[in-house]
């Protein structure tokens, strides 16, 4: 498995819920990410889908070490990032970058494009100051923006342009791996397509590896090589893009897929929905067992008793379900 750029092993991220009258003591914990393992290969796009509250963004934050995980390892080229501190960590950050969701919130409104793009150079002392403007121009052209716009401020760009600046900022330090956290979900469809196209283009030109986090299956389906489906902090299914979309095994994946409408009235009117009876957020506090069981038509006693573990069902296709 030399080909793996990132290996995630038994990653856990628990957030304590503080309670207690006298001294704050740890009561219950929110298990945002619970025992997740997977690998990302060099040069691929690894899709991570899940609905709100599934822990996918927390997972991305752990990978970036913006949250320090409770337990587990995040290996980047065989180095465990969770063990790095201070300067070492800062150096690794050059190689792992992020693109964020909100094109309005991810750029400091008081800095212009050139400042935003050159800041990483300043932090890591990568280029002499006099070459900043050249570098900024390069980066802007790379992401398809007019270098003449370098001195504009975020509010003077459209949403799509802002997302391009965000991408340029991530690329300035020459990373190998980028966590794309919902990079297109707040964009209009046509802009969405442009950004996805740009990401794909950059991937092939710069040999980048992506972790592509999204709630929109269609977007993930159209971008990823491997896809992992997350539900309540755990992975429920992991496989190649085709495995997941053409042969989903986990009842949750199937329900998810069936809920996504297809923009074609002819097809759409023939598709069947999988019944998901209860509102997702409602059945939150059931300890133990499969967390999906209360929505699952196939649930049985085993599902209540033990938490299912990931098992390989066919080559490169894992699922966590007692019933399959």
């Amino acid at each position: 498995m030399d080909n793996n750029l990132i290996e995630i092993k038994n990653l856990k991220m628990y957030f304590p819920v503080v309670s207690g009258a006298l001294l704050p003591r740890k009561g219950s914990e929110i298990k945002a990410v619970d025992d997740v393992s997977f690998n990302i290969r060099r040069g691929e796009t690894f899709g991570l889908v899940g609905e709100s509250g599934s822990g996918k963004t927390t997972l991305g934050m752990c990978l970036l070490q913006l949250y320090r995980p409770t337990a587990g390892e995040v290996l980047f080229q065989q180095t465990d990032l969770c063990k790095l501190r201070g300067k070492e960590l800062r150096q690794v950050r050059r190689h792992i970058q992020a693109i964020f969701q909100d094109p309005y919130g991810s750029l400091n409104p008081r800095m212009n494009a050139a400042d935003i793009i050159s800041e990483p150079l300043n932090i890591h002392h990568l280029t002499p100051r006099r070459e900043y403007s050249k570098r900024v121009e390069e980066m802007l052209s790379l992401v398809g923006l007019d270098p003449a716009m370098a001195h504009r401020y975020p509010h003077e760009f459209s949403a799509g342009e802002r997302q391009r600046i965000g991408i340029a900022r991530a690329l300035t330090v020459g990373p190998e791996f980028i966590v794309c956290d919902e990079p297109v979900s707040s964009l209009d469809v046509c802009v969405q397509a442009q950004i996805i196209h740009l990401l794909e283009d950059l991937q092939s030109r710069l040999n980048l590896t992506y972790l592509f986090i999204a709630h929109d299956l269609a977007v993930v389906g159209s971008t990823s090589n491997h896809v992992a489906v997350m539900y309540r902090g755990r992975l429920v299914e992991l496989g190649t893009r085709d495995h997941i979309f053409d042969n989903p095994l986990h009842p949750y994946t199937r329900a998810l897929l069936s809920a996504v409408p297809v923009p074609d009235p002819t097809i759409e009117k023939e598709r069947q929905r999988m019944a998901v009876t209860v509102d997702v957020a409602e059945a939150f506090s059931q300890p133990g067992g499969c967390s999906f069981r209360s929505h699952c038509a196939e649930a049985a006693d085993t599902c209540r008793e033990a938490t299912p573990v990931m098992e390989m069902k066919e080559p490169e296709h894992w699922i966590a379900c007692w019933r399959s």
Partner: protein
Amino acid sequence: MRSFEEEKKKRPARGRSLWIYAGQRFMRNKKGMVCLAIILLLYGAGIFAPLVAPYGYDQQNLGQALKAPGWEHPFGTDRLGRDVFSRVIFGIRTTVIVTVAAMAAGGLVLGIAMGLISGYFGRFIDSVIMRVGEVFLAFPDILLVILIAATLKPRVTEWVRGLEGTVGIEGIVRSGFVDYMVVFGALAIVSWVGMARVVRGQVLSLKESQYVMAARALGASHWRIIFRHIFPNILPPIIVLVSVGMGSIAGSEVILSWLGLGVQPPVPSLGVMIWDNGDISILRTTPYLLLFPVGTVAIIIFAFNLLGDALNDALNPKIR
């Protein structure tokens, strides 16, 4: 309402920061501009008081005492025959000194710094700062002002006066700057908490913003994040608070004079003039001694407050 991308593209927006936009919005605000003009006018008159005032502040003429307002003395004269108009102008100069001293005393800086540290680093530091802040909030500040300012002030002024003597300059103590520095310095010890709480709240929300996350992901240091990413974005509410705060500082000078903590006679301050004449007997016999200083203070407070409103509209625009 979402923004209208199409419209925006047509606008000739080229590298103008939010500050410039805020400036433009402010310039369009008539109320704000009028207030700014008033403040500039009054502050200008105060700073250049010796040039503006027709008489000296301590120029006495016992034969001309208690003259009602007229051509020669637009605001009348007081019991020592001094020109009230000139004294009001010099009083404004004291107000200028008060506001500058209050800013220099550092309550503001302390508040912002504490708020930034508390909000940004969180956890233990946050708890400690907020707890300490609560003690200060619960502590009656007038007690502190009297016990610290009233007792420390003579020592400090004596020391500075000695310093003036050795250096060979004069007038720093006489202007009241040192007095107010000490008083507001003492006040700063208790008054940082309000500002710190505002700043902390802002920092807490900005800390989770994606651009701060992005900066952290880039490996930016804490100081870079605080000063480049967080601080500029909490400035607008601070500016508004400062503007309103300037008004209340100008107003608090009245109370400080009453407590005997202000500038020393014969240098006039609006507060001294109000307090000395804040009496119904004056209002019945020589009302101009009271009304002109009061009017001036009221205008200053009023203008700073409305300016704060206007700045708020300009800096924190909300689409209606």
